[in-house]
């Protein structure tokens, strides 16, 4: 087979971001990328939870707070605010998790200052009108009930509880009974307490001049002030690996296999090697896991592994949704491939392929306004700047076979991972028992 050559094209340079800190403590990160006359805006506000006892309540509060935040300000009601955002092409989304509050929108180039002004208005004077908050509280409760019927949600929750014990990350969904107890006053207090500029970062990418954005931002956010707050995050707890946690879902025609374990994050020297080990194992289509489970055995549609980077630490995960009747065989094959990663070196071809994919897709994902804005925001979540991208490119280029094997031995070994299966226990339990001890869900 003679294939056309790959040409060394002009390399994708890692983006340069203009970074600054406003007098109120808000960090800004701006990249000019005038590919279309649009601007991507993200505002990341850390909401670190330093207390595992109150984490569940904080997550319920954060969830309703984020979904009620656009119900009006001191100057505008819900409708006026929605109209004024739409008029500049924006559709502002607000979300919260155990790490942060995140505002996200794209806007026409001509509407950036409007969006920044409205963001500042929301941050300084979101009104949380009682009647609307009560209605949203009921909707949120029903949306959570709906989510809890999705097997993917159930499986993620079960793995998080298994891995994170009483850490805030164990709560991947707000508790509906805690949501039901919230009121507008609580949200207003919580907003005042948590939505503060120190430690927050505004990311702007698009058809802009960084100097102009700096002026617009400092004028828009001048009145958003507040003292710094603690930024300590709870370290992730240890968990007891081994066994299979089985969550019964009677009648399920598929089983959701979810595996997880501790990993290293973007600051760690072993991160690049772990990323490549992950790719070779199950992180992309040309991986061992996809070849085995999907292309050889037809057990599953889209098996996948990855490294989740959160503020408190990183986690290696494996996901596969498989036909009920092959559940134990699929777990066995997945463990087999994990074991092979940990015990034997990968080939030079596998490493080269994964490396080119890692470098190529890094360039692709930062080639669009939205992709770059999301990448930068994700880095901000770990306290990193845009320069990490160039450092990571260099690190990936230097990874050796021995580095990959060492990372696999440490982070992909079955003995250090937790396995969770959501499925029809009456069908799958016996065969799973022949692989490992069955544990009850946490």
């Amino acid at each position, binding site marked *: *087979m003679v*294939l*056309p*050559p*790959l*040409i060394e*094209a*002009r390399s*994708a340079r890692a983006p340069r971001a203009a970074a600054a800190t406003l007098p109120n403590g808000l960090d800004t990160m701006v990249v000019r990328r005038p*590919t*279309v*006359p*649009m601007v991507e805006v993200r505002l990341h506000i850390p909401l670190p939870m330093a207390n595992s006892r109150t984490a569940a309540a904080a997550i319920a509060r954060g969830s309703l707070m984020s979904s009620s935040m*656009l119900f009006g300000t001191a100057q505008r009601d*819900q*409708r006026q605010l*929605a109209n004024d*955002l*739409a*008029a*500049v*092409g*924006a559709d502002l989304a607000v979300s919260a998790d155990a790490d942060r509050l995140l505002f996200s929108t*794209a*806007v*026409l180039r001509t*509407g950036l200052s*409007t969006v920044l002004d409205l963001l500042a208005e929301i941050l300084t004077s979101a009104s949380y009108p009682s009647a609307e908050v009560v*209605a949203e509280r*009921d*909707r949120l409760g029903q*949306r959570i*009930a*709906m989510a809890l*019927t*999705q*097997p993917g949600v159930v499986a993620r929750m079960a793995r998080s509880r298994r891995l994170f014990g009483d850490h805030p990350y164990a709560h991947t969904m707000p508790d509906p009974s805690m949501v039901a107890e919230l009121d507008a006053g609580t949200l207003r207090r919580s907003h005042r307490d948590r939505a503060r500029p120190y430690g927050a970062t505004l990311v702007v990418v698009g058809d802009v001049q960084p100097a102009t954005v700096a002026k617009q931002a400092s004028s828009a956010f001048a009145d958003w002030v507040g003292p710094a707050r603690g930024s300590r995050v709870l370290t992730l707890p240890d968990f007891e690996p081994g066994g299979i946690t089985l969550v019964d879902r009677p009648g*399920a*025609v*598929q089983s959701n296999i979810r595996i997880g374990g501790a990993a290293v994050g973007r600051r760690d020297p072993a991160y690049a090697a772990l990323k490549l080990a992950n790719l070779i194992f199950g992180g992309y*289509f*040309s991986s061992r896991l996809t070849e085995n489970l*999907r*292309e050889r*055995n*037809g057990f*599953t*549609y*889209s098996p996948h592994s990855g490294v989740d980077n959160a503020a408190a630490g990183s986690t290696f995960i494996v996901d596969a949704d*498989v*036909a009920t009747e092959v559940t134990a065989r699929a777990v066995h094959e997945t463990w087999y491939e994990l074991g092979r990663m940990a015990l034997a070196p990968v080939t030079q071809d596998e490493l*080269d392929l994964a490396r*080119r*994919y890692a470098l*190529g*897709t890094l*360039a*692709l994902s930062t*080639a*669009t306004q939205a992709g770059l804005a999301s990448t930068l925001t994700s880095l901000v979540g770990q306290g990193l700047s845009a320069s990490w991208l160039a450092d990571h490119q260099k690190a990936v280029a230097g990874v050796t076979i021995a580095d990959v094997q060492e990372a696999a031995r440490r982070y992909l070994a079955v003995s250090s991972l937790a396995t969770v299966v959501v499925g029809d226990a009456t069908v799958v339990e016996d065969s799973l028992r022949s692989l490992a001890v069955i544990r009850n869900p946490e």
Partner: protein
Amino acid sequence: MPVRVPTLPAHPLHRLTLDNGLRVVLAPDSTAPVVAVAVYYDVGMRSEPLGRTGFAHLFEHVMFQGSAQLPKLEHARQVQGSGGIFNGSTHLDYTNYFEVLPAGALERALFCEADRMAAPLLTQETIDNQIDVVKEEIRVNVLNRPYGAFPWLQLPEVLFDSFANTHNGYGDFVDLESATAEDAAAFFDSYYAPGNAVLAVGGDFDVEQVTQWVERYFAGVPARTTPQRPPFAEPALAEDRHAEVVDPLAVTPALAIGWRVPDPVGDFEGFLPYVVLSELMSDSDASRLEQRLIHRDHLALYQAMYLGLFGDPFDARDATALMFQAHHGRDVSAGQVLAAVKEELKSVAEEGVGETELARVQARIAAQLLRQADPVLGRIQGFAAGELIHGRAEFATELPGRLAQVDAGSVAAAASALGTQHRAVLELVPGARA
């Protein structure tokens, strides 16, 4: 004061047609060292024969199972090993395959696409393997979850009558399991002829160089007769239709409405106001239905109105539909939601749309189109679909301007037409307990 809506600088388009009939669209753009390649075949779920439901999608999977010079798995390795990504998708009227890669891998991507256009490996072994994979895809997206594929899989049965328009495009398991290598060979022979395809290439390249490569790799694919496409249009509904489906995994009800709309190709002028209407009704917090159903009357948990089964107004020929779906609580009846939607349409029809509101909707439409056009893949998908469905790649470039010209009167007229015609309603009844 309405915001000034910026427009996209026009990228030059280059077109050629090879002797074997392959239509080629080249869209050079050197803003990033990235290229995208897309091949669109003029066959989708609607062309599946009786007893072969799901075959177009199954065949899409099989196209990744190797070709004359690339063994199984090698397509993925070539693309990903060049630092790129790939995928494919099956629509009502076409099936597409695409890659996004670093610019230096363009020739290799063209080689890979040409190799499978010439001769995909169609063995029973790989077909059996992909039948298993597709069944798992259907289980994960439809059978093992609540609201699976609602309403695109269920509403067409109520809204349309012909097999082409109503059948399950994901496929019945019985049909999938009986698929053979001979079926695949016949399907390939009829529908995957170069004259039935469009190749689009975008990004950082030299037009002359790429023209040479296209000739080198694709000109050798032998010409074959292209199939006659039967019309899929259907007459208007003679009466309102209503059906229920029980979802054993759902805990809260859902509702879908479908309306017939003008031919998106033959009556493009008449179709465009419906695009603006769907945005006015349903896009963003400011829209009429979000205001009414969520914020004012607290009737729904979620609402969406959109054109086309999959939410793309421009990826299908006639017949297509205006779709509405809502999730609502058990304490709200489907009738309440239906009545509110009807009233809101009536209000647009009778009271019209003000200048400020229309400007706002136009700003949102422009912003969404611009955002879609930022990735090079988004741009060339627009060109390829434009060429295939509308006969002109330039369609994608002209669309923002055409939508911006839609006036308030024609939006009101579209709403009025919906009010006087019959519609299909599908209620999803929850079969599980909360």
